[in-house]
């Protein structure tokens, strides 16, 4: 567990898409680690892997619109000591090619890194077909899989480096739209180790991805109402940092989760399981409740699907009230 202080939420907040940080990280890591190879499925501009492809054409393969084949091609490369990064949109990586990930990559214990972009409804205008809100569930359910969603661009660069150093399959969810940069270069990142961004005695908010900035905003607003919240960045959905979670569940007596994912099988499910087993406290979950996404501006979609700071605040009040 690490306690860090996030940047002050002064306006204007710097925004950067985590997918851009991914492309940049690959470029840097590809320089020093010659085992890194990158595969994309005709989305190399969108996922930003094209930067790597231009610099290292001999280690970049556009596999066309054929995700299942791409996934197992990566598996084959991994058996020969390569560290393949496989990129496409989250829904195609985890949905279209799920069984390839399960049966060939994970069952074989292969060192394949699935770095997919366009997670959640924040994709916006493309609508439901391109908005992945089930990917944590799909990937977390596979034995041995590691599942990560970084909270901002700075964390993404660190996460990609950690993913290269990690031995074994990893799914890392990245975002399309620019999102607030809330961590510092000095903020630590370790797979499976949560970062506590703010400490408060009354309620714990555990969030991942771009819900972390929303959680911080909710905590500020709660503070104005006299309720002090702890905010934990649970960037690793699996394996979950149960120790940090339970520590703060004990201290605060109430927990709220916040994720851009359906309520089944994602962060809230993982947190609920850990708390039920180790230290049950009142818990509320902010997430998408049994609905598909739709086209629209991300901000409007966050309101429609109850993912805003105010939704987190209301959930925190409910959890707090149940203590």
């Amino acid at each position, binding site marked *: 567990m690490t306690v860090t202080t996030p940047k002050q939420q002064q306006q204007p907040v710097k925004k950067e898409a985590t997918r851009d940080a991914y492309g940049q990280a690959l470029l840097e890591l590809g320089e020093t680690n010659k085992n890194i*190879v990158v595969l994309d499925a005709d989305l190399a501009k969108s996922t930003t892997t094209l930067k790597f492809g231009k610099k290292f054409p*001999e*280690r970049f*393969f556009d*596999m*066309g619109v*054929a995700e*299942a*084949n*791409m*996934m*197992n*091609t*990566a*598996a*084959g*490369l*991994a*058996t*020969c*000591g*390569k560290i*393949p990064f496989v990129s496409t949109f989250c829904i195609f990586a985890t949905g279209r090619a799920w*069984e*390839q990930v399960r*049966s*060939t990559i994970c*069952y*074989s*214990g292969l060192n394949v890194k699935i770095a997919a972009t366009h997670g959640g409804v924040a994709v916006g205008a493309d609508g439901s077909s391109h908005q992945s809100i089930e990917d944590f569930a799909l990937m977390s359910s596979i034995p041995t899989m590691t599942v990560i969603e970084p909270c901002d661009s700075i964390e993404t660069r660190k996460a990609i480096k950690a993913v290269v150093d990690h031995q074994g399959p990893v799914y890392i969810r990245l975002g399309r739209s620019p999102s607030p940069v809330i961590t510092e270069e000095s903020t630590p990142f370790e797979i499976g180790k949560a970062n506590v961004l703010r400490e408060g005695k009354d309620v714990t908010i555990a969030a991942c991805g771009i819900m972390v900035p929303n959680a911080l905003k909710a905590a500020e607003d709660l503070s104005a109402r006299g309720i002090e919240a702890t905010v934990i960045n649970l960037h690793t959905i699996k394996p979950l940092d149960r120790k940090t979670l339970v520590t703060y569940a004990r201290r605060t007596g109430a927990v709220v989760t916040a994720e851009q994912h359906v309520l089944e099988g994602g962060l809230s499910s993982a947190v609920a399981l850990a708390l039920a087993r180790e230290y049950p406290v009142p818990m509320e979950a902010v997430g998408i409740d049994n609905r598909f996404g739709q086209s629209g501006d991300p901000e409007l979609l966050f309101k429609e699907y109850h993912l805003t700071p105010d939704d987190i605040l209301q959930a925190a009040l409910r959890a707090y009230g149940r203590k």
Partner: protein
Amino acid sequence: MNTRPTTQELQTKAKEIRRHIIRMLAKAGSGHPGGSLSATDLLVALYYGKLRHDPKNPKWTERDRFVLSKGHGCPALYAILAEMGYFPISELDTLRQFGSRLQGHPDMKRTPGIEISSGSLGHGLSAGAGMAMAARIDGLDYRVYVMLGDGEVEEGQVWEAAMAAGHYKLDNLCAILDNNGLQIDGPIHDVMSPLPLLEKWDAFGWHVIHIDGHNMAQILEAYDRAEAIKGKPTIIIAKTVKGKGVSFMENQVDWHGKAPTPEQAEKALAELV
């Protein structure tokens, strides 16, 4: 291989492998005799007559790779790997049993000599293409062989892989199609015809070789010709007989996934002498 065995020697070895298959499946009480027996000659010729490998060093970087994409044929592969010294022959008796290294379908983490786990059809050609691409990146001259079933090629992913291997001109990749003509629900042309095979693979940019998959001389020649083809991958479409070598199993769809009883096994072994 320093010296290639004669076709006679290969035939004798194949008979031995078929006997292992019958014994293993009878002991296990389940498994897939039909597709194991149809693939046996192709696999014996590959392992004893072509593949560059070292049973004492299964992870040798420069070894040729073999992927059994039709993973249910693994009894044939296990028997060959055991005969070649990858693991003790006595272990063949543990097939499909709890705690065994010899799982019902190939498992690369448990079994020495297995290059990648398989069993879910349609995955292996993609993986083989990945291995072939790795060879290219590393400037190594190893070759990759992938065995497909003819029911398996109904999987869409096989054609995604065929397209990619053709596109990237992976001439170090050789697919071997065990064309026994039967799948679980019946003859392939009745269930879901993948025919014509030659024209399809040709259209995807592959060199196609047709052979009798039980003729050792033809098989060896096909492996050599495939190696000589440059600028495109090769597929060897091998006409085979499902259940080959056991008269009452030959061309019988019911022997796809059923183990022989002890009496049937005895009868089968009597034919394989």
